[in-house]
């Protein structure tokens, strides 16, 4: 399998002396769907930004064997108070035919809609269409389901799987929702500043490091109420 990105001994330090990523060695192969999981502050966003080239490594190196990498941030830096339309967004950052890519994500009728008038889920779909139009070899998505409700999550992941197959691209998906993310991935990276564990989902889910990291936070739901069921 062709390698797209190779990360060797990557460390990222933020001023004054905060070590966010510590000695990471990872690789991304062609066509892989990788889930990047970890608790808040574990360095997930820093890692995808470093892969995208938005953050420079303090130590180590990131070898990119393709320059077709598209990054969709967790929180868009677009000023949505400006009346930018989806057509204008594509004219600036995408490629024609816009309609085809918007159709792929079910947003064709939104072409002349203003970006600021879209919901979080709709905006993510537009960004994915924008990414598709750039025909990337690697798509990096940071918390794409953060603006999506539970019902729409399932269809969102189905769409991700479909576009990965149709466009033969690799995807790195950052998420908090470990159950869903693990279920859809080929490979899981579990991050806590360093790589706790990595590998196929089943292997990672049963690993000691994974259970130690996530189990204390996965309390079973206890139904409590102050009313009587009829």
């Amino acid at each position, binding site marked *: 399998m062709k390698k797209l990105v190779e990360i060797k001994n990557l460390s990222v330090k933020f*001023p004054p002396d905060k070590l966010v990523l510590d000695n990471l060695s990872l690789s991304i192969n062609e066509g892989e769907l990788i889930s990047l999981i970890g608790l808040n502050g574990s360095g997930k966003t820093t890692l995808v930004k470093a892969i995208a080239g938005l953050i420079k490594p303090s130590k180590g190196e990131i070898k990119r064997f393709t320059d077709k990498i598209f990054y969709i941030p967790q929180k868009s830096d677009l000023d949505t108070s400006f009346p930018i339309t989806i057509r204008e967004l594509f004219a600036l950052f995408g490629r024609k035919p816009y309609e085809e890519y918007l159709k792929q994500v079910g947003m064709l009728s939104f072409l002349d809609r203003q970006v600021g008038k879209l919901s979080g889920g709709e905006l993510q779909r537009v960004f994915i269409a924008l990414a598709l139009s750039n025909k990337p070899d690697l798509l990096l998505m940071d918390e794409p389901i953060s603006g999506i409700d539970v019902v729409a999550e399932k269809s969102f992941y189905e769409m991700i799987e479909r576009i990965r197959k149709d466009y033969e691209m690799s995807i790195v998906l950052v998420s908090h929702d470990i159950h869903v993310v693990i279920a859809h991935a080929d490979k899981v990276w579990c991050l806590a500043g360093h790589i706790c564990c990595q590998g196929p989902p089943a292997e990672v889910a049963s690993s000691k490091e994974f259970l130690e990291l996530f189990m204390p936070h996965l309390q079973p739901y206890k139904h409590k109420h102050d009313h009587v069921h009829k």
Partner: protein
Amino acid sequence: MSLMLSWLGGYVVLRREVVLAHAMPNVAFLGVVLAFMFGYSITFAIVLFTVIAALLIDYLRRKNLIHSDSLLEIFAQFGLASAVIVLSFVKGYQIDLTQFLFGDILAISHTDLYFTFAIFVLVSLSLYKWHHVFLKLSLSESFSHVSLKNSRLWHTFLILLVAVSIGLAMKIVGILLVAAFTTVPANIAKLFAKSIKQTFVFAAIIGLITTFVGLHVSALWDVPSGASIVVLLISTLFFTFAVVRP
């Protein structure tokens, strides 16, 4: 000039860096004072000081040590405070703040004026030719990074264009008008424009119309022209806000 500044203001407002319209005139003021002290060309001093400040701001912003807005405000304070200190060494010269606030086209030599005009033509041509690149950079840093080659160099170029234009315009029309043109027209236009293209076009038209009307009002009522234009611009903003976004 109002047309050019209003257009540039579109990028500045999009980038949420309106403090630049406050910082660059202050830095330019320091250049003016030093040029006055040593007898150099005022325009050359403004270009030199704003270019150095813009490059430093760009460098420090990338280091991620201080937020962009704080960084710009620090440069604004440094420029003004240094200029006042330098002025205190010039015997018999009193600070004329009205000249700083409202500009003084008569204080510029003919050569300086031609040089300024030439730079404004170059800036306007650059805006015409590379508007889509500057728009990309201003709209989204992350998307422009992946869809634009040499995005960092383009970014530096945009900052330099904005900084030099604002600095030079300050000497002619004053800090008040420069800041108003860079901030207000784009904010009025975005209230009723239906697209980003319309926002830039409307901002330029608003800048132009308010300049003409402001100058006429000033002549008619015998009030300061710069202040009239600023008040007119801000009144238009509130009026538009009341009508479009009740």
